[in-house]
Protein backbone atom coordinates (compact mmCIF):
# COMPACT_ATOMS: atom_id res chain seq x y z
CA UNK A 1 0.00 0.00 0.00
CA UNK A 2 1.35 3.44 -0.88
CA UNK A 3 1.84 6.18 1.67
CA UNK A 4 -1.05 8.07 0.09
CA UNK A 5 -3.39 5.10 0.33
CA UNK A 6 -2.33 4.54 3.92
CA UNK A 7 -2.95 8.20 4.76
CA UNK A 8 -6.40 8.04 3.16
CA UNK A 9 -7.24 4.85 5.04
CA UNK A 10 -5.97 6.30 8.29
CA UNK A 11 -8.06 9.45 7.77
CA UNK A 12 -11.07 7.29 6.95
CA UNK A 13 -10.77 5.21 10.09
CA UNK A 14 -10.06 7.97 12.56
CA UNK A 15 -12.08 10.81 11.07
CA UNK A 16 -15.08 9.29 9.35
CA UNK A 17 -17.67 10.12 12.02
CA UNK A 18 -16.11 13.51 12.68
CA UNK A 19 -16.31 14.43 9.02
CA UNK A 20 -19.82 13.06 8.46
CA UNK A 21 -21.10 14.89 11.51
CA UNK A 22 -19.53 18.18 10.47
CA UNK A 23 -20.94 17.85 6.95
CA UNK A 24 -24.40 16.70 8.05
CA UNK A 25 -24.81 19.07 11.01
CA UNK A 26 -25.85 21.89 8.67
CA UNK A 27 -27.89 19.95 6.14
CA UNK A 28 -29.15 17.09 8.34
CA UNK A 29 -28.72 14.95 5.24
CA UNK A 30 -26.52 12.09 6.44
CA UNK A 31 -26.79 10.11 3.21
CA UNK A 32 -25.66 13.09 1.11
CA UNK A 33 -22.78 13.75 3.53
CA UNK A 34 -21.68 10.11 3.28
CA UNK A 35 -21.86 10.13 -0.51
CA UNK A 36 -19.86 13.33 -0.73
CA UNK A 37 -17.28 11.98 1.70
CA UNK A 38 -16.98 8.71 -0.21
CA UNK A 39 -16.29 10.70 -3.35
CA UNK A 40 -13.75 12.84 -1.52
CA UNK A 41 -11.94 9.68 -0.36
CA UNK A 42 -11.95 8.33 -3.92
CA UNK A 43 -10.46 11.60 -5.13
CA UNK A 44 -7.86 11.52 -2.38
CA UNK A 45 -6.77 8.05 -3.47
CA UNK A 46 -6.39 9.32 -7.03
CA UNK A 47 -4.69 12.64 -6.34
CA UNK A 48 -2.59 12.15 -3.18
CA UNK A 49 -0.13 9.72 -4.80
CA UNK A 50 0.55 12.42 -7.43
CA UNK A 51 0.33 15.66 -5.44
CA UNK A 52 1.50 14.27 -2.12
CA UNK A 53 -0.44 13.76 1.12
CA UNK A 54 -1.82 17.11 2.31
CA UNK A 55 -0.61 18.47 5.61
CA UNK A 56 -4.09 18.17 7.06
CA UNK A 57 -5.91 15.31 5.32
CA UNK A 58 -9.18 16.01 7.22
CA UNK A 59 -9.30 19.58 5.95
CA UNK A 60 -8.58 18.43 2.41
CA UNK A 61 -11.35 15.82 2.61
CA UNK A 62 -13.93 18.12 4.09
CA UNK A 63 -13.22 20.80 1.48
CA UNK A 64 -13.59 18.26 -1.29
CA UNK A 65 -16.78 16.85 0.23
CA UNK A 66 -18.26 20.33 0.71
CA UNK A 67 -17.65 21.17 -2.90
CA UNK A 68 -19.47 18.03 -3.84
CA UNK A 69 -22.33 18.84 -1.47
CA UNK A 70 -22.67 22.34 -2.81
CA UNK A 71 -22.87 20.83 -6.24
CA UNK A 72 -19.81 22.79 -7.18
CA UNK A 73 -17.78 19.80 -8.10
CA UNK A 74 -17.71 20.52 -11.78
CA UNK A 75 -17.39 24.25 -11.35
CA UNK A 76 -14.58 23.66 -8.90
CA UNK A 77 -12.68 21.61 -11.44
CA UNK A 78 -12.74 24.54 -13.81
CA UNK A 79 -11.46 27.09 -11.34
CA UNK A 80 -7.77 27.73 -11.16
CA UNK A 81 -5.72 25.83 -8.66
CA UNK A 82 -4.72 28.97 -6.82
CA UNK A 83 -8.31 29.62 -5.70
CA UNK A 84 -8.63 26.03 -4.55
CA UNK A 85 -5.43 26.27 -2.63
CA UNK A 86 -6.48 29.48 -0.86
CA UNK A 87 -9.82 27.94 0.08
CA UNK A 88 -8.15 24.82 1.30
CA UNK A 89 -5.79 26.78 3.53
CA UNK A 90 -8.74 28.64 5.02
CA UNK A 91 -10.66 25.45 5.58
CA UNK A 92 -7.62 23.90 7.17
CA UNK A 93 -7.40 26.71 9.67
CA UNK A 94 -11.10 26.54 10.39
CA UNK A 95 -11.18 22.81 10.94
CA UNK A 96 -8.35 23.06 13.42
CA UNK A 97 -9.50 26.18 15.19
CA UNK A 98 -13.23 26.46 14.84
CA UNK A 99 -15.02 23.20 14.13
CA UNK A 100 -16.38 21.73 17.30
CA UNK A 101 -16.65 17.98 17.45
CA UNK A 102 -20.14 17.33 16.09
CA UNK A 103 -20.10 13.60 16.72
CA UNK A 104 -22.08 13.92 19.93
CA UNK A 105 -24.94 15.49 17.97
CA UNK A 106 -24.70 12.71 15.42
CA UNK A 107 -24.95 10.09 18.17
CA UNK A 108 -28.06 11.78 19.57
CA UNK A 109 -29.59 11.95 16.09
CA UNK A 110 -28.95 8.25 15.48
CA UNK A 111 -30.55 7.32 18.82
CA UNK A 112 -33.45 9.79 18.50
CA UNK A 113 -36.73 8.35 19.81
CA UNK A 114 -38.31 9.06 16.41
CA UNK A 115 -35.94 6.46 14.91
CA UNK A 116 -36.97 2.86 15.44
CA UNK A 117 -34.92 1.43 18.32
CA UNK A 118 -33.80 -1.68 16.44
CA UNK A 119 -32.10 0.33 13.69
CA UNK A 120 -30.26 2.76 16.03
CA UNK A 121 -27.17 0.61 16.73
CA UNK A 122 -26.62 -0.06 13.02
CA UNK A 123 -27.16 3.60 12.16
CA UNK A 124 -24.53 4.64 14.70
CA UNK A 125 -22.01 2.08 13.53
CA UNK A 126 -22.42 3.26 9.97
CA UNK A 127 -22.54 7.02 10.38
CA UNK A 128 -20.15 7.46 13.31
CA UNK A 129 -17.60 4.74 12.59
CA UNK A 130 -18.12 4.31 8.87
CA UNK A 131 -18.79 0.56 8.92
CA UNK A 132 -20.21 -0.62 5.64
CA UNK A 133 -23.78 -1.87 5.47
CA UNK A 134 -22.82 -5.40 4.38
CA UNK A 135 -20.64 -5.92 7.44
CA UNK A 136 -23.30 -4.52 9.76
CA UNK A 137 -25.91 -6.71 8.07
CA UNK A 138 -23.91 -9.87 8.65
CA UNK A 139 -23.48 -9.00 12.32
CA UNK A 140 -27.20 -8.40 12.73
CA UNK A 141 -27.99 -11.54 10.71
CA UNK A 142 -30.09 -9.78 8.09
CA UNK A 143 -29.65 -9.59 4.33
CA UNK A 144 -27.35 -6.75 3.22
CA UNK A 145 -30.11 -5.37 1.00
CA UNK A 146 -32.56 -5.35 3.92
CA UNK A 147 -30.02 -3.61 6.17
CA UNK A 148 -29.23 -1.01 3.52
CA UNK A 149 -32.92 -0.34 3.09
CA UNK A 150 -33.47 0.18 6.82
CA UNK A 151 -30.49 2.52 7.04
CA UNK A 152 -31.61 4.48 3.99
CA UNK A 153 -35.11 4.80 5.44
CA UNK A 154 -33.77 6.02 8.78
CA UNK A 155 -31.56 8.63 7.13
CA UNK A 156 -34.45 9.79 4.96
CA UNK A 157 -36.58 10.23 8.05
CA UNK A 158 -33.86 12.28 9.76
CA UNK A 159 -33.71 14.56 6.72
CA UNK A 160 -37.42 14.72 5.83
CA UNK A 161 -38.92 14.98 9.32
CA UNK A 162 -36.08 17.35 10.24
CA UNK A 163 -34.75 15.61 13.32
CA UNK A 164 -32.47 18.29 14.75
CA UNK A 165 -28.69 17.89 15.01
CA UNK A 166 -28.63 19.07 18.56
CA UNK A 167 -27.70 17.95 22.00
CA UNK A 168 -31.00 17.49 23.91
CA UNK A 169 -32.09 19.90 26.62
CA UNK A 170 -32.11 19.27 30.36
CA UNK A 171 -35.58 17.76 30.52
CA UNK A 172 -34.88 15.14 27.84
CA UNK A 173 -31.25 14.61 28.72
CA UNK A 174 -31.45 11.48 30.93
CA UNK A 175 -33.78 9.58 28.58
CA UNK A 176 -31.94 10.60 25.44
CA UNK A 177 -28.54 9.74 26.90
CA UNK A 178 -29.96 6.38 27.96
CA UNK A 179 -31.09 5.81 24.35
CA UNK A 180 -27.58 6.54 23.05
CA UNK A 181 -25.98 4.20 25.58
CA UNK A 182 -28.60 1.48 24.95
CA UNK A 183 -27.89 1.58 21.22
CA UNK A 184 -24.15 1.22 21.83
CA UNK A 185 -24.73 -1.66 24.24
CA UNK A 186 -27.06 -3.30 21.71
CA UNK A 187 -24.28 -3.07 19.12
CA UNK A 188 -21.96 -4.69 21.65
CA UNK A 189 -24.56 -7.37 22.38
CA UNK A 190 -24.68 -8.33 18.72
CA UNK A 191 -20.93 -8.89 18.76
CA UNK A 192 -21.17 -10.72 22.06
CA UNK A 193 -23.79 -13.25 21.00
CA UNK A 194 -21.94 -13.82 17.78
CA UNK A 195 -18.80 -14.81 19.68
CA UNK A 196 -20.46 -18.13 20.28
CA UNK A 197 -19.78 -18.79 16.63
CA UNK A 198 -16.52 -18.42 14.82
CA UNK A 199 -17.17 -15.50 12.51
CA UNK A 200 -14.21 -13.12 12.86
CA UNK A 201 -16.24 -10.26 11.36
CA UNK A 202 -18.73 -10.45 14.18
CA UNK A 203 -16.09 -10.37 16.88
CA UNK A 204 -14.93 -7.10 15.35
CA UNK A 205 -18.30 -5.51 16.02
CA UNK A 206 -17.83 -5.84 19.78
CA UNK A 207 -14.63 -3.83 19.41
CA UNK A 208 -16.42 -1.22 17.32
CA UNK A 209 -19.06 -0.88 20.03
CA UNK A 210 -16.29 -0.37 22.57
CA UNK A 211 -14.86 2.34 20.30
CA UNK A 212 -18.25 4.07 20.41
CA UNK A 213 -18.21 3.70 24.20
CA UNK A 214 -14.80 5.33 24.41
CA UNK A 215 -16.01 8.12 22.15
CA UNK A 216 -18.99 8.90 24.39
CA UNK A 217 -16.85 8.79 27.54
CA UNK A 218 -14.50 11.28 25.87
CA UNK A 219 -17.31 13.56 24.70
CA UNK A 220 -19.20 13.52 28.01
CA UNK A 221 -16.57 13.56 30.76
CA UNK A 222 -19.07 14.86 33.34
CA UNK A 223 -21.47 11.91 32.96
CA UNK A 224 -20.99 8.72 35.00
CA UNK A 225 -23.16 6.36 32.93
CA UNK A 226 -20.99 6.32 29.77
CA UNK A 227 -18.11 5.26 32.02
CA UNK A 228 -20.35 2.57 33.53
CA UNK A 229 -21.26 1.30 30.07
CA UNK A 230 -17.65 1.25 28.90
CA UNK A 231 -16.60 -0.54 32.08
CA UNK A 232 -19.38 -3.11 31.56
CA UNK A 233 -18.30 -3.78 27.98
CA UNK A 234 -14.64 -4.08 28.99
CA UNK A 235 -15.48 -6.53 31.81
CA UNK A 236 -17.40 -8.66 29.30
CA UNK A 237 -14.62 -8.33 26.76
CA UNK A 238 -12.06 -9.45 29.33
CA UNK A 239 -13.92 -12.73 29.75
CA UNK A 240 -14.73 -13.34 26.12
CA UNK A 241 -12.21 -16.06 25.34
CA UNK A 242 -12.88 -17.79 28.66
CA UNK A 243 -16.52 -18.39 27.70
CA UNK A 244 -15.47 -21.38 25.65
CA UNK A 245 -13.11 -24.18 26.55
CA UNK A 246 -10.48 -25.59 24.21
CA UNK A 247 -13.09 -27.87 22.65
CA UNK A 248 -15.26 -24.85 21.81
CA UNK A 249 -17.79 -25.73 24.49
CA UNK A 250 -19.66 -23.01 26.36
CA UNK A 251 -18.48 -22.39 29.94
CA UNK A 252 -20.84 -20.48 32.26
CA UNK A 253 -19.38 -17.57 34.25
CA UNK A 254 -19.04 -19.35 37.61
CA UNK A 255 -17.13 -22.25 36.03
CA UNK A 256 -14.78 -20.10 33.92
CA UNK A 257 -11.01 -20.43 34.23
CA UNK A 258 -10.13 -17.02 35.65
CA UNK A 259 -6.55 -17.25 34.44
CA UNK A 260 -7.93 -16.81 30.94
CA UNK A 261 -9.52 -13.45 31.76
CA UNK A 262 -7.77 -10.40 30.31
CA UNK A 263 -6.33 -8.56 33.30
CA UNK A 264 -5.46 -5.37 31.44
CA UNK A 265 -9.08 -4.87 30.39
CA UNK A 266 -10.28 -5.67 33.90
CA UNK A 267 -7.98 -3.06 35.40
CA UNK A 268 -9.19 -0.46 32.93
CA UNK A 269 -12.82 -1.38 33.65
CA UNK A 270 -12.28 -1.17 37.42
CA UNK A 271 -10.73 2.26 37.16
CA UNK A 272 -13.58 3.53 34.93
CA UNK A 273 -16.12 2.18 37.38
CA UNK A 274 -14.35 3.92 40.23
CA UNK A 275 -14.27 7.20 38.29
CA UNK A 276 -17.98 6.81 37.59
CA UNK A 277 -18.76 6.17 41.25
CA UNK A 278 -17.10 9.47 42.19
CA UNK A 279 -19.93 11.30 40.40
CA UNK A 280 -22.25 9.82 43.05
CA UNK A 281 -25.12 9.29 40.61
CA UNK A 282 -26.46 5.75 40.39
CA UNK A 283 -27.20 4.36 36.96
CA UNK A 284 -28.11 1.04 35.39
CA UNK A 285 -24.84 0.62 33.49
CA UNK A 286 -22.76 1.39 36.57
CA UNK A 287 -24.84 -1.20 38.42
CA UNK A 288 -24.33 -3.82 35.68
CA UNK A 289 -20.61 -3.06 35.63
CA UNK A 290 -20.45 -3.36 39.43
CA UNK A 291 -22.06 -6.81 39.15
CA UNK A 292 -19.33 -7.81 36.69
CA UNK A 293 -16.74 -6.35 39.02
CA UNK A 294 -17.91 -8.62 41.85
CA UNK A 295 -17.60 -11.65 39.58
CA UNK A 296 -14.06 -10.86 38.46
CA UNK A 297 -12.92 -10.61 42.07
CA UNK A 298 -13.34 -14.37 42.43
CA UNK A 299 -9.72 -15.22 41.54
CA UNK A 300 -8.47 -12.57 44.00
CA UNK A 301 -10.65 -13.41 46.99
CA UNK A 302 -11.22 -17.07 46.12
CA UNK A 303 -15.00 -16.75 46.52
CA UNK A 304 -17.91 -14.88 44.99
CA UNK A 305 -19.40 -12.21 47.23
CA UNK A 306 -23.02 -13.31 46.97
CA UNK A 307 -24.33 -10.69 49.39
CA UNK A 308 -22.87 -7.93 47.21
CA UNK A 309 -24.42 -9.50 44.13
CA UNK A 310 -27.83 -9.80 45.76
CA UNK A 311 -27.72 -6.16 46.79
CA UNK A 312 -26.66 -5.00 43.34
CA UNK A 313 -29.40 -7.01 41.68
CA UNK A 314 -31.93 -5.57 44.11
CA UNK A 315 -30.82 -2.06 43.08
CA UNK A 316 -30.90 -3.10 39.46
CA UNK A 317 -34.47 -4.42 39.70
CA UNK A 318 -35.63 -1.44 41.75
CA UNK A 319 -34.35 0.94 39.07
CA UNK A 320 -35.80 -0.99 36.16
CA UNK A 321 -37.59 -4.30 36.67
CA UNK A 322 -36.91 -5.73 33.23
CA UNK A 323 -37.43 -9.42 32.57
CA UNK A 324 -33.67 -9.97 32.25
CA UNK A 325 -32.96 -8.22 35.54
CA UNK A 326 -35.64 -10.19 37.41
CA UNK A 327 -34.34 -13.52 36.15
CA UNK A 328 -30.74 -12.53 36.89
CA UNK A 329 -31.76 -11.54 40.42
CA UNK A 330 -33.28 -14.98 40.94
CA UNK A 331 -30.05 -16.49 39.62
CA UNK A 332 -28.03 -14.49 42.14
CA UNK A 333 -30.27 -15.73 44.98
CA UNK A 334 -29.82 -19.30 43.80
CA UNK A 335 -26.04 -19.00 43.76
CA UNK A 336 -26.20 -17.50 47.25
CA UNK A 337 -27.79 -20.78 48.37
CA UNK A 338 -31.37 -19.51 48.49
CA UNK A 339 -33.03 -21.81 45.98
CA UNK A 340 -36.50 -21.59 47.57
CA UNK A 341 -36.51 -17.78 47.43
CA UNK A 342 -35.07 -17.87 43.91
CA UNK A 343 -37.84 -20.14 42.67
CA UNK A 344 -40.45 -17.94 44.35
CA UNK A 345 -38.92 -14.94 42.55
CA UNK A 346 -39.22 -16.75 39.24
CA UNK A 347 -42.83 -17.73 39.93
CA UNK A 348 -43.65 -14.12 40.73
CA UNK A 349 -42.47 -12.77 37.37
CA UNK A 350 -45.58 -11.57 35.55
CA UNK A 351 -44.08 -10.62 32.19
CA UNK A 352 -45.93 -12.15 29.24
CA UNK A 353 -42.52 -12.72 27.62
CA UNK A 354 -41.41 -14.91 30.51
CA UNK A 355 -42.28 -18.30 29.06
CA UNK A 356 -40.35 -17.60 25.85
CA UNK A 357 -37.27 -16.31 27.66
CA UNK A 358 -34.45 -18.88 27.62
CA UNK A 359 -32.56 -17.64 30.72
CA UNK A 360 -35.81 -17.97 32.72
CA UNK A 361 -35.95 -21.71 31.95
CA UNK A 362 -32.24 -22.23 32.59
CA UNK A 363 -32.54 -20.55 35.99
CA UNK A 364 -35.73 -22.48 36.75
CA UNK A 365 -33.98 -25.73 35.88
CA UNK A 366 -31.07 -24.89 38.20
CA UNK A 367 -33.44 -23.95 41.05
CA UNK A 368 -35.50 -27.13 40.74
CA UNK A 369 -32.37 -29.25 40.54
CA UNK A 370 -31.00 -27.62 43.69
CA UNK A 371 -34.30 -28.42 45.43
CA UNK A 372 -34.19 -32.04 44.28
CA UNK A 373 -37.36 -31.70 42.20
CA UNK A 374 -35.76 -33.66 39.37
CA UNK A 375 -38.66 -34.50 37.02
CA UNK A 376 -39.72 -30.81 36.98
CA UNK A 377 -36.08 -29.78 36.55
CA UNK A 378 -35.74 -32.06 33.55
CA UNK A 379 -38.87 -30.57 31.97
CA UNK A 380 -37.54 -27.02 32.47
CA UNK A 381 -34.18 -28.00 30.99
CA UNK A 382 -35.83 -29.38 27.91
CA UNK A 383 -37.73 -26.11 27.34
CA UNK A 384 -34.45 -24.19 27.84
CA UNK A 385 -32.75 -26.32 25.20
CA UNK A 386 -35.61 -25.75 22.82
CA UNK A 387 -35.34 -21.96 23.27
CA UNK A 388 -31.53 -21.77 22.96
CA UNK A 389 -30.39 -19.88 19.90
CA UNK A 390 -26.64 -20.23 20.25
CA UNK A 391 -25.27 -23.62 19.21
CA UNK A 392 -22.58 -23.63 21.93
CA UNK A 393 -25.12 -22.90 24.65
CA UNK A 394 -27.49 -25.55 23.31
CA UNK A 395 -24.63 -28.06 23.26
CA UNK A 396 -23.78 -27.20 26.88
CA UNK A 397 -27.35 -27.78 27.99
CA UNK A 398 -27.62 -31.00 25.98
CA UNK A 399 -24.52 -32.30 27.76
CA UNK A 400 -26.11 -31.39 31.08
CA UNK A 401 -29.26 -33.26 30.04
CA UNK A 402 -27.26 -36.35 29.05
CA UNK A 403 -25.40 -36.17 32.38
CA UNK A 404 -28.64 -36.13 34.32
CA UNK A 405 -30.32 -38.94 32.43
Amino acid at each position, binding site marked *: MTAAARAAEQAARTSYGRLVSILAARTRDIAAAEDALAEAFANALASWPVSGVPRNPEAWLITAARHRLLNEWRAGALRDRATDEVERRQEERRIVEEFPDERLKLLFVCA*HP*AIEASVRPALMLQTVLGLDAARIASAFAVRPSAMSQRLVRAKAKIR*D*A*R*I*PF*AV*PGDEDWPDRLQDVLDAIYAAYGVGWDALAGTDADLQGLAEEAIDLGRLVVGLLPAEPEPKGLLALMLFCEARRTARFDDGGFFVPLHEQDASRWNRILIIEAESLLEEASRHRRFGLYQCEAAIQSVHVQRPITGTVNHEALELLYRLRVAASPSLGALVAQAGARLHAGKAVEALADLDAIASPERDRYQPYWVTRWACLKALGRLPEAEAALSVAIGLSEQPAVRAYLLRAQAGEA
Partner: protein
Amino acid sequence: MQYMLILNETADDFAKRNDPQQAGAYWGGWNAFISAMGAAGVIVKGDGLLGPETATTVRIKDGKRHIQDGPFADTKEQLGGYFIIEVPDLDAAIEWALKAPSAACASVEVRPVLVMAPASAA
Protein backbone atom coordinates in the same frame (compact mmCIF):
# COMPACT_ATOMS: atom_id res chain seq x y z
CA MET B 1 -40.85 23.77 8.75
CA GLN B 2 -44.50 22.80 8.94
CA TYR B 3 -45.84 19.75 10.77
CA MET B 4 -49.35 18.45 11.13
CA LEU B 5 -50.37 17.38 14.61
CA ILE B 6 -52.94 14.66 14.00
CA LEU B 7 -55.00 14.62 17.17
CA ASN B 8 -56.55 11.26 17.90
CA GLU B 9 -59.20 10.82 20.55
CA THR B 10 -61.02 7.93 22.17
CA ALA B 11 -64.79 7.46 22.27
CA ASP B 12 -64.64 8.65 25.90
CA ASP B 13 -62.98 11.90 24.83
CA PHE B 14 -65.60 12.53 22.18
CA ALA B 15 -68.36 11.83 24.73
CA LYS B 16 -66.93 14.46 27.09
CA ARG B 17 -67.61 17.20 24.56
CA ASN B 18 -71.36 17.13 25.26
CA ASP B 19 -71.38 15.81 28.80
CA PRO B 20 -72.42 18.72 31.09
CA GLN B 21 -70.22 17.29 33.87
CA GLN B 22 -67.05 17.05 31.79
CA ALA B 23 -67.43 19.46 28.89
CA GLY B 24 -65.94 22.37 30.85
CA ALA B 25 -62.72 20.55 31.68
CA TYR B 26 -62.54 19.05 28.21
CA TRP B 27 -62.87 22.32 26.31
CA GLY B 28 -60.81 24.17 28.91
CA GLY B 29 -57.91 21.83 28.24
CA TRP B 30 -58.11 22.32 24.50
CA ASN B 31 -58.52 26.09 24.76
CA ALA B 32 -55.45 26.34 26.99
CA PHE B 33 -53.42 24.25 24.54
CA ILE B 34 -54.56 26.29 21.55
CA SER B 35 -53.96 29.59 23.38
CA ALA B 36 -50.43 28.50 24.27
CA MET B 37 -49.68 27.64 20.64
CA GLY B 38 -51.31 30.89 19.54
CA ALA B 39 -49.22 32.91 22.00
CA ALA B 40 -46.07 31.20 20.71
CA GLY B 41 -47.13 32.09 17.17
CA VAL B 42 -46.72 28.57 15.81
CA ILE B 43 -50.24 27.91 14.47
CA VAL B 44 -50.60 27.97 10.69
CA LYS B 45 -54.12 26.56 10.75
CA GLY B 46 -56.17 23.99 12.54
CA ASP B 47 -59.64 22.65 13.29
CA GLY B 48 -61.48 20.36 15.55
CA LEU B 49 -63.72 17.81 13.89
CA LEU B 50 -67.14 16.47 14.80
CA GLY B 51 -67.10 12.91 16.10
CA PRO B 52 -66.60 9.76 14.02
CA GLU B 53 -70.36 9.03 14.17
CA THR B 54 -70.76 11.91 11.71
CA ALA B 55 -68.22 10.44 9.28
CA THR B 56 -69.02 9.09 5.85
CA THR B 57 -66.49 7.07 3.89
CA VAL B 58 -66.63 6.85 0.11
CA ARG B 59 -64.64 4.86 -2.43
CA ILE B 60 -64.89 3.85 -6.07
CA LYS B 61 -64.53 0.14 -6.73
CA ASP B 62 -64.84 -1.36 -10.19
CA GLY B 63 -66.25 1.94 -11.39
CA LYS B 64 -69.05 1.87 -8.80
CA ARG B 65 -69.55 4.43 -6.08
CA HIS B 66 -69.56 3.01 -2.56
CA ILE B 67 -70.75 5.31 0.15
CA GLN B 68 -70.83 4.09 3.69
CA ASP B 69 -71.58 5.31 7.15
CA GLY B 70 -68.71 5.72 9.61
CA PRO B 71 -64.96 6.25 9.50
CA PHE B 72 -62.54 4.25 7.32
CA ALA B 73 -61.41 1.98 10.11
CA ASP B 74 -63.28 1.22 13.31
CA THR B 75 -60.36 1.65 15.72
CA LYS B 76 -60.15 2.65 19.37
CA GLU B 77 -58.78 6.07 18.48
CA GLN B 78 -60.31 8.37 15.91
CA LEU B 79 -59.25 11.62 14.35
CA GLY B 80 -60.65 14.45 16.47
CA GLY B 81 -58.86 17.41 14.94
CA TYR B 82 -55.61 18.70 13.54
CA PHE B 83 -53.22 21.61 13.64
CA ILE B 84 -50.59 22.67 11.16
CA ILE B 85 -47.76 24.32 13.08
CA GLU B 86 -44.62 26.10 11.94
CA VAL B 87 -41.60 25.19 14.09
CA PRO B 88 -37.85 24.74 13.48
CA ASP B 89 -37.60 20.97 13.77
CA LEU B 90 -39.14 17.65 14.85
CA ASP B 91 -38.15 18.08 18.50
CA ALA B 92 -40.07 21.37 18.67
CA ALA B 93 -43.10 19.73 17.00
CA ILE B 94 -42.93 16.81 19.44
CA GLU B 95 -42.88 19.27 22.36
CA TRP B 96 -46.18 20.79 21.20
CA ALA B 97 -47.69 17.39 20.41
CA LEU B 98 -46.97 16.23 23.96
CA LYS B 99 -48.89 19.23 25.33
CA ALA B 100 -52.11 18.39 23.43
CA PRO B 101 -54.80 17.04 25.82
CA SER B 102 -55.30 14.01 23.58
CA ALA B 103 -51.63 12.97 24.06
CA ALA B 104 -52.57 12.02 27.62
CA CYS B 105 -55.69 9.97 26.75
CA ALA B 106 -55.11 8.81 23.18
CA SER B 107 -52.32 9.83 20.81
CA VAL B 108 -50.95 12.53 18.57
CA GLU B 109 -49.24 11.72 15.31
CA VAL B 110 -46.66 14.22 14.07
CA ARG B 111 -46.11 14.45 10.30
CA PRO B 112 -44.02 16.83 8.25
CA VAL B 113 -46.10 18.70 5.67
CA LEU B 114 -45.15 17.84 2.12
CA VAL B 115 -43.56 20.74 0.33
CA MET B 116 -44.30 20.55 -3.38
CA ALA B 117 -41.39 21.51 -5.60
CA PRO B 118 -42.40 24.45 -7.79
CA ALA B 119 -43.42 23.29 -11.29
CA SER B 120 -40.49 23.49 -13.65
CA ALA B 121 -40.72 26.36 -16.16
CA ALA B 122 -39.34 24.20 -18.96
